[in-house]
């Protein structure tokens, strides 16, 4: 069992090195796709095996056999518990979908593409399982380096290169701030193990050093999570990255970042930093992100950019779930993240099919051109409904869990944000889907040339099984989430495990046998949450219809849209910045975060 757990991290890395080494021969190059997909399938399979066999206990693996002496850590720990394994399974699944979709992808890149995707997978797994703050940083950097390279790999596209550079620069500044936080925490506690740092911090109340270290440490992760105002790189990168990479950035990286925020809060800072401080920070950043992302998403016509801003919006919702600081909030955030990752992955993959076939991602340019892509069109539109959270699809399971968690935390006002995000992001996707695949609406003004190079040397004009199956599978998983009756129990228990600070510390430092606390499970199907889910979808459809037939909008709607439009234009102006501004925004965000923590 322990070997299997380590292999979740090590197997993708080793496979990457083997593929890279073998690919100097033509025969070896043909190994890349099958071996890559095999490992990417084996990782989630292994995670599922562990989920079943390890059960609800927490396993701690000390690398190099350096077990703690008298409760004091020497080596690096991997902490394998249910919540971490669930995230690993999700990331592995997305990677498998991405690699299958891109089989024989980009012949001129040789095997490098597959190698980098596998290293990204290994890095995500290492980051999620790491029980040591510096170890997490190393995996964080590996995740970054592979992601920047993958984003910029279509070097013939200038935007692609530029997006990758912005991505790399902003994320590296964030990583340096995080590492400064690590150094400051080390100066205070002299420890690197998460549990040990936490135990040390809890012996005194937090002073400025601890609070600001917390802000520094979180800043790097919030950049990866794309919370406003750390989010500027996101649309630049996800709009131009190769399609399978978009799936990984929007589904995997956001989720993994959110997991780290939750884990670090409960293991390291809970009990030292006041709860209200982090609650205000995460809810504040989350709500602003959700609204800004939704508005930006709704007003895009470049498909991948639209999807990228919707990722920003959903990341905000996930941040709010963590900010509720309860097991049920985490369960909601987790369910929501899974629903989002799968729906979004399917959407990106279909968008990639459109790009390869029509060489544009402009919604207006594509008007009616997808009429004959029945299956792809169906996937796209259902995935849009799934993103909007039509019961029981996609994000609905998460939203339903939110209803309970929000009531517990007396933060019902967030329901408004949730409905708004669902309606605007889902509505924007529906608008695009109906326009492209059904040909509904006014004939749009095509505007200037929006031609983009297709992905790969020999782009596939026909959509075979390997191209359609991955988005279909992701969509089925997203749909199944709300239908599977056991899902609420799994999520609630995992949320409770995450919040069990004492259990984590005992398992890591004292080799205790720790099992997840029992929880009372609230069923997902309740009138309120189902009603809100339907409301969001109805609003989304109304929004889509208004977007499709601008000429037939009633006068009241036009009048009401006036002020919104001015606000949105301002928002777009702010986003028309350059990379220097992005870095300034990171500093501003750090300042706001730090000030929030200090103030409360």
């Amino acid at each position, binding site marked *: 069992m322990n070997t299997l757990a*380590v292999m979740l991290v090590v197997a993708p890395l080793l496979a*990457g090195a083997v593929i890279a080494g073998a690919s100097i021969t033509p025969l070896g190059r043909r190994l890349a796709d099958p071996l890559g997909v095999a490992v990417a399938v084996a990782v989630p399979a292994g995670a599922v095996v562990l989920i079943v066999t390890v059960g609800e206990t927490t396993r701690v693996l000390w690398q190099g*056999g350096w077990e703690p002496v008298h409760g004091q850590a020497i080596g690096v720990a991997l902490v394998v518990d249910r919540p971490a394994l669930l995230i690993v399974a999700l990331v592995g699944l997305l990677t498998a979908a991405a690699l299958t979709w891109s089989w024989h992808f980009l012949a001129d890149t040789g095997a490098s593409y597959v190698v980098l995707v596998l290293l990204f997978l290994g890095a995500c797994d290492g980051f999620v399982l790491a029980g040591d703050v510096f170890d997490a940083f190393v995996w964080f950097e*590996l995740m970054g380096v592979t992601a920047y390279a993958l984003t910029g790999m279509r070097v013939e596209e200038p935007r692609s290169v530029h997006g990758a550079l912005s991505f790399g620069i902003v994320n590296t500044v964030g990583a340096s701030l995080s590492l400064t936080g690590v150094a400051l925490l080390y100066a205070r506690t002299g420890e690197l193990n998460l549990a040990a740092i936490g135990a040390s911090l809890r012996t005194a109340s937090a002073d400025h*050093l601890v609070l600001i270290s917390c802000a520094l440490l979180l800043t790097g992760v919030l950049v990866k999570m794309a919370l406003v105002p750390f989010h500027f790189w996101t649309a630049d990168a996800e709009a131009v990255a190769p399609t399978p990479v978009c799936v990984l950035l929007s589904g995997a990286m956001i989720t993994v970042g959110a997991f780290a925020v939750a884990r670090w809060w409960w293991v390291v800072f809970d009990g030292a930093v006041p709860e209200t401080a982090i609650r205000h920070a995460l809810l504040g950043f989350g709500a602003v992100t959700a609204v800004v992302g939704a508005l930006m998403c709704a007003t895009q016509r470049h498909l991948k950019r639209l999807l990228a801003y919707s990722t920003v919006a959903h990341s905000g919702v996930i941040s709010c779930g963590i900010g509720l600081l309860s097991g049920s909030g985490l369960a909601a955030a987790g369910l929501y993240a899974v629903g989002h990752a799968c729906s979004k992955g399917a959407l990106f993959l279909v968008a990639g099919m459109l790009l390869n076939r029509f060489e544009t991602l402009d919604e207006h340019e594509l008007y009616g051109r997808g009429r004959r892509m029945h299956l792809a069109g169906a996937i796209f539109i259902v995935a849009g409904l799934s993103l909007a959270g039509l019961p029981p699809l996609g994000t609905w399971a998460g939203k339903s869990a939110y209803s309970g968690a929000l009531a517990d935390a007396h933060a019902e006002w967030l329901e408004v944000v949730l409905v708004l995000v669902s309606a605007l992001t889902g509505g924007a996707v529906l608008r695009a889907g109906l326009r492209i695949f059904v040909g509904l609406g006014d004939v749009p003004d095509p505007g200037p040339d929006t031609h983009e190079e297709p992905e790969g040397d020999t782009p596939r004009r026909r959509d075979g099984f390997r191209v359609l199956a991955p988005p279909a599978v992701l969509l089925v998983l997203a749909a199944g989430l709300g239908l599977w009756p056991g899902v609420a129990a799994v999520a609630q228990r995992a949320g409770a495990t995450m919040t069990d600070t004492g259990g984590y510390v005992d398992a890591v430092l004292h080799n205790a046998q720790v099992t997840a606390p029992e929880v009372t499970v609230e069923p997902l199907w309740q009138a309120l949450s189902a009603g809100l889910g339907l409301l969001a979808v109805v609003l989304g459809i109304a929004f889509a219809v208004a977007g499709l037939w601008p000429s037939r909008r009633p006068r009241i709607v036009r009048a009401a849209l006036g002020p919104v439009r001015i606000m949105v234009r301002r928002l777009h102006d702010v986003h028309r910045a350059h990379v220097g501004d992005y870095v300034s925004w990171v500093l501003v965000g*750090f*300042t706001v975060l730090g000030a929030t923590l200090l103030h409360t």
Partner: protein
Amino acid sequence: MTRARASRLLLAVGGSGAAILMLLALGGLPRLGDVPHPYAERAVPAALSRHTANVISSVNFDQRAFDTMGEEFVLFAAAVAAVLLLRRFHDEEEDAHDLQYGPRDVWSAANLAGFALLAPTMMVGLYVVAHGAVSPGGGFQGGAVLATGLHLAYLAGDYVVLQRLRPVAVFDAAEAVGAAGFVLLGISALFVGDPFLTNWLPTGTLGALASAGMVELFNVAVGMEVASALVLLLAKFLEQALVVRGGGDA
């Protein structure tokens, strides 16, 4: 407000805010030299228990070898990425047949000095890799010396000689072997029933070469990885800088 002024204002707000926060945080630090080091007080005896004189090597290649594996793959990824990103593309491929190398006029003494230094530098690099467990140095530093040493031939002005010294495919393979080697060394521990990356080889007397068990082997794998990754990076950048397009592409 113009865009440039808005940018300045934003920077002023973010920069001063971050500066104030940093100063507040630093005020809470112990004075330089007075920081407590509980982890270090465990790491030193742990290193000595495995007969590794260079405690840093023990931390890097034994106690926290898992970090080093990740770090090695960062470098590996960067080299793979550089090869990927700096590949010749469609429009460049057409001109590839009449590529030529930029002219370089170099004083012949520099030429000679470069070649004369080549061999000793390589020796130093290998020495530094080999002695990582007992004296300052190790795979990282030795690998860097090896890679830069090889490029003395370029300083000597002879790109053609450098190309002959540095067949890129070999370093491609060596890099992969270095990276995979580290992982496989770690896996070897699983076969003797120890956890991943355990230093399971017998250790010798403190201070002697090959005293630290697996630390030496990890050092060699890292040295190989670092040297070949840096060679690949330098090769790709040199190729970009030196190769000029022949013909009329503008």
